[in-house]
C-alpha cells in the first residue's frame, strides 16, 4: 500500500514536470539577455513613443514569441541564432512554440505568450488565417509579423491595424529564375525523361508553392513549346494527383500534399515506380523523405532521377548532398537553400523597428505596411556544400551585427521601406556570403 502511494506521488510529480516542460504551445521561455530584465511591460507596445534611443539597452527587454510550424533543422538553427546572437546583442528574450499546424494551436500559443508578457509575435506558420490571428494578438496588446506573401494576407495590409507589422517572405522571381535556368541547362531537348512536380500546399492556398508550381510549368511550356489543356493556375492548385496533358505527350505529373500526410510518400513512390519520370521537382523540403524511393526506382529501372528541392542548412542537407546514388550523383541535385540567419534577421529587424517606435519607417509608398523579400541561394554540388557545411552553425552566421543594424531605425532614424529592402537584397548569392564568411 505504501509502495503504491509513493508510486502515485512520484508519477504525479513526473507528469507535472513533463507537462510544465511541454506546457501548452509555449515550450520554452528563454532568458538570453545579459542585462537585468525589466519588469514586464504594463504599457502595451503599441503605445511606445518615438523617443530616440542610442542602443538596445536604452529600451526595456522586449519579449518576442515565435510560432514554429515544423521541427526541422531550420527550427533548431533559428532558435540558436535568436538565443545566441540576437538576444544578447539587442536586449530581447524569445519564447518558442512547439510545432503548430493549425489556428487553434496558434491561438493557444498567443494566449500563453500574453500570460508571459510577450510584446510581439513572429508567425512562421504562414497560412491564410493571419487576419484572425493578428486580431487575437491585438486583443492582448501584441504586435504581429506574418511570414509569407503579401497576397496571402492582403486583408491585413488593407486594414492596416495598429499591431500589424507587415510580412516577410522568400523572393519568388529569383527562385523561379534559378529553377528555370537549371531546367533549361540540364533537362533534355525533347522532355522524354518526364517530370513530377510536388506542389505541396498549393491546393491549400500557399502562394509561394502555387507560384513556384506555375513557374515550373511555364518553364517546361517555354522549353518544349507545350500547350496544356488547362491553364497553369488551375493545374497548380489541383488538390488531387494530376497528369498534365499537353500537345507533345511529355509526361508531367503534379502531386499535391504535405510530406507528413499519411499516404503521401506511397503516392510519390507509386508514381516514380511507373518508370515514366526522370525529374522530381519539389516546392518543399522533401529530399530526406523521398531519397529511399528515388534510390530504389533508380536501381530498378537503371535510370537516373534528378531531384530538385527546397532546403535549409543542417544535417539532412549534408547527408543528402553527400549520399551518392548508383550513378554517382548526390541524392539531391539542386537545392534552393534558405539560410535561416538571413530570414530570421529580417524578421527580427521588422519586429524590433515596430517595438522601438519605428513602425512607420516600414510603410511603403502606398502608406501601408510593407511585405519584404529575402533571397535564397542555390546549391548544385557537394563541393559548394562542403564549403558551406558550417555556415549558420556554431556562431558562424551568414549575417553580421552590422547587417542587422543596417535595417534598424534606432541606428538609422530616417530609414525607409525601400532602404530596408535594398539592404536585404545585398545578400544575393552564394558568392556574396562566401566572400563574407570565408574571404
Amino acid at each position, binding site marked *: 500500500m505504501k509502495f503504491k502511494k509513493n508510486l502515485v506521488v512520484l508519477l504525479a510529480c513526473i507528469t507535472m514536470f513533463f507537462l510544465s516542460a511541454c506546457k501548452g504551445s509555449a515550450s520554452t521561455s528563454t532568458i538570453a539577455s545579459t542585462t537585468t530584465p525589466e519588469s514586464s511591460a504594463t504599457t502595451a507596445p503599441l503605445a511606445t513613443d518615438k523617443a530616440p534611443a542610442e542602443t538596445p539597452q536604452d529600451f526595456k527587454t522586449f519579449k518576442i514569441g515565435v510560432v514554429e510550424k515544423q521541427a526541422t533543422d531550420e527550427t533548431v538553427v533559428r532558435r540558436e541564432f535568436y538565443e545566441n546572437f540576437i538576444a544578447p546583442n539587442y536586449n530581447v528574450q524569445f519564447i518558442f512554440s512547439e510545432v503548430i499546424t493549425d489556428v487553434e494551436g496558434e491561438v493557444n500559443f498567443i494566449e500563453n505568450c500574453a500570460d508571459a508578457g510577450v510584446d510581439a509575435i513572429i508567425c512562421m506558420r504562414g497560412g491564410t488565417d493571419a487576419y484572425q490571428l493578428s486580431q487575437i494578438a491585438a486583443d492582448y496588446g501584441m504586435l504581429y509579423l506574418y511570414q509569407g506573401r503579401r497576397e496571402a494576407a492582403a486583408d491585413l495590409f488593407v486594414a492596416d491595424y495598429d499591431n500589424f507589422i507587415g510580412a516577410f517572405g522568400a523572393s519568388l522571381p529569383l527562385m523561379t529564375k534559378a529553377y528555370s535556368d537549371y531546367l533549361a541547362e540540364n533537362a533534355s531537348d525533347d522532355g522524354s525523361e518526364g517530370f513530377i512536380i510536388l506542389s505541396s500546399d498549393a491546393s491549400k492556398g500557399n502562394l509561394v508553392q502555387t507560384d513556384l508550381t506555375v513557374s515550373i510549368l511555364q518553364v517546361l511550356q517555354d522549353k518544349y513549346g507545350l500547350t496544356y489543356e488547362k491553364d497553369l493556375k488551375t493545374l497548380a492548385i489541383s488538390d488531387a494527383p494530376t497528369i498534365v496533358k499537353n500537345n507533345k505527350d511529355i509526361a508531367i505529373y503534379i502531386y499535391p500534399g504535405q510530406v507528413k500526410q499519411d*499516404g503521401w510518400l506511397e503516392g510519390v513512390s507509386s508514381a516514380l515506380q511507373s518508370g515514366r519520370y526522370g525529374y522530381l521537382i519539389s516546392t518543399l523540403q522533401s529530399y*530526406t523523405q523521398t531519397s529511399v524511393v528515388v534510390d530504389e526506382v533508380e536501381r530498378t529501372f537503371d535510370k537516373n532521377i534528378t531531384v530538385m528541392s527546397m532546403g535549409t542548412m543542417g544535417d539532412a542537407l549534408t547527408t543528402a548532398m553527400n549520399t551518392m546514388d548508383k550513378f554517382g550523383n548526390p541524392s539531391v541535385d539542386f537545392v534552393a537553400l534558405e539560410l535561416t540567419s538571413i530570414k530570421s534577421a529580417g524578421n527580427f529587424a521588422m519586429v524590433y523597428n515596430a517595438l522601438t517606435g519605428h513602425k512607420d519607417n516600414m510603410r511603403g509608398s502606398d502608406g501601408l505596411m510593407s511585405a519584404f523579400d529575402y533571397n535564397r541561394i542555390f546549391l548544385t554540388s557537394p563541393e559548394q556544400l562542403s564549403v558551406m557545411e558550417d555556415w549558420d552553425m556554431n556562431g558562424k552566421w551568414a549575417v553580421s551585427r552590422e547587417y542587422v543594424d543596417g535595417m534598424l531605425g534606432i541606428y538609422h532614424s530616417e530609414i525607409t521601406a525601400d532602404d530596408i529592402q535594398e539592404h536585404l537584397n545585398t545578400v544575393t548569392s552564394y558568392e556574396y556570403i562566401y566572400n563574407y564568411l570565408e574571404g
Partner: protein
Amino acid sequence: MKKLFYTLVVPVSVWAIMELLSRCFAGVSVIANSADMKSLFRTLTSTFCFAMALNCNVPMGRMDLSTGAQMYLGCILGGNIALKLGFGGVGVLIGSILVGCLAGFIVGVVFINLRILSMVLGLGMTLIYECISFASYKQQGLMLFGKPGVGILSNIWFIVSVAAMIILFMTYMLQLSVFGYKRRAIRGNQKLAVDSGINIYINCLICYAMAGALVAVSGVFDTAFKGTLNPVLGMSSNNNTFYNMFPMRVGMFLGVFIGNPIIGIFASSISLNILILGMAKLGLDQSLQTIIIFSIFLFFMIYNMNQEKLEYNKRKRERKKIALQHRREMKEMQTQVNRNHITTGS
C-alpha cells in the same frame, strides 16, 4: 485446405479487384516490378507488427492508446543510441525493440499497480512519451537516411525474414506456449483464471512488453522507408493506433476461420496494403483513400458487431422455413386422410 482457402481468400480477392481497377483506369498492374514488391513488403511488415501489438492487449479488454507513443520513443531513443554506438540497421532494430519493450513494460507496471483504466492511462502515457521523444535529440527524431549500415532495413529478404520470425515467435507465444494458454484463459474469464492460480499481472506485463517491442519494429521499417521519424505532440501518435485497428480487427475475424489469429492478421495486413497500393496506382487523393479505408472499416465493424443478430435472424428464418414446410406436410397428410375417409367411410 479449408484453412488455406480462408487465409488466401481476402488478400487474393482484394488483389484481383485492385488489379482489375488499376489495369482499367491506370493502365498498370498493382505490383508491376520489384520496387513495388519491396514497397509492399515493407509497409506490410510495418502494418502487421503494429496490428499484432494491438492484438496483444485489445482482445484482453485493454485499449492501450499509448502504443503509437511507445513506437516513437522506442525508435527515437533506441535508434539514435544504436547509431551513436556505430551499429548498423540491425543494431537500430534491436535497440528500438529494447527501448520499445521497456516503454511498454513501464506502461504495464503502472497499469497493474494503479488500476487506472487502460484507455485513460494510455492517454497519459502518450503525453509523457511524446514529450520525451520531442525533447530528445533537438526535436530531430530519428534520421536513417544516409546513415551507414542501415541499407539492410530496405533489403527485401531481411524484411521477409523479420516478418517470418515475428510470425513464428508470436504463433508460439500466443498459440502454443503456456503463456498463450493462460492468456486465453484470462480472456475467457479473468476471475476464473485468477481462482485457478494464473498470475494475471505477469501475463499483463508480458503483453505490454511484447506490444512495445512490436510497435518499435513497425516504426523502424516505416522510418527506413521514409528516411526520418519526426517526433509529434498533442497525441498525434494515436493516429497510428487507430489506423492499425482495421487490420487487427479484420485479422481477428479471419483468424476464427483460419484457426490462427496471427495468420489472420497477416492476411488482413496484406489485404490492406494491396488496397492502399492499388489506390495509389489509381492516383487517388490521400483524403479520398482515407475515406475509403475507414468506410470499409466502419462497414466491417457494423457487420462484426451485429453478426450474432444476423446469425439469429438466419436461424429464425430457417426454423420458420422448416415450420412452414412441416405445416404444409401436415396439411397434405390431413387432406389425404380426409380423402381416404370419404372414399372408404361413406
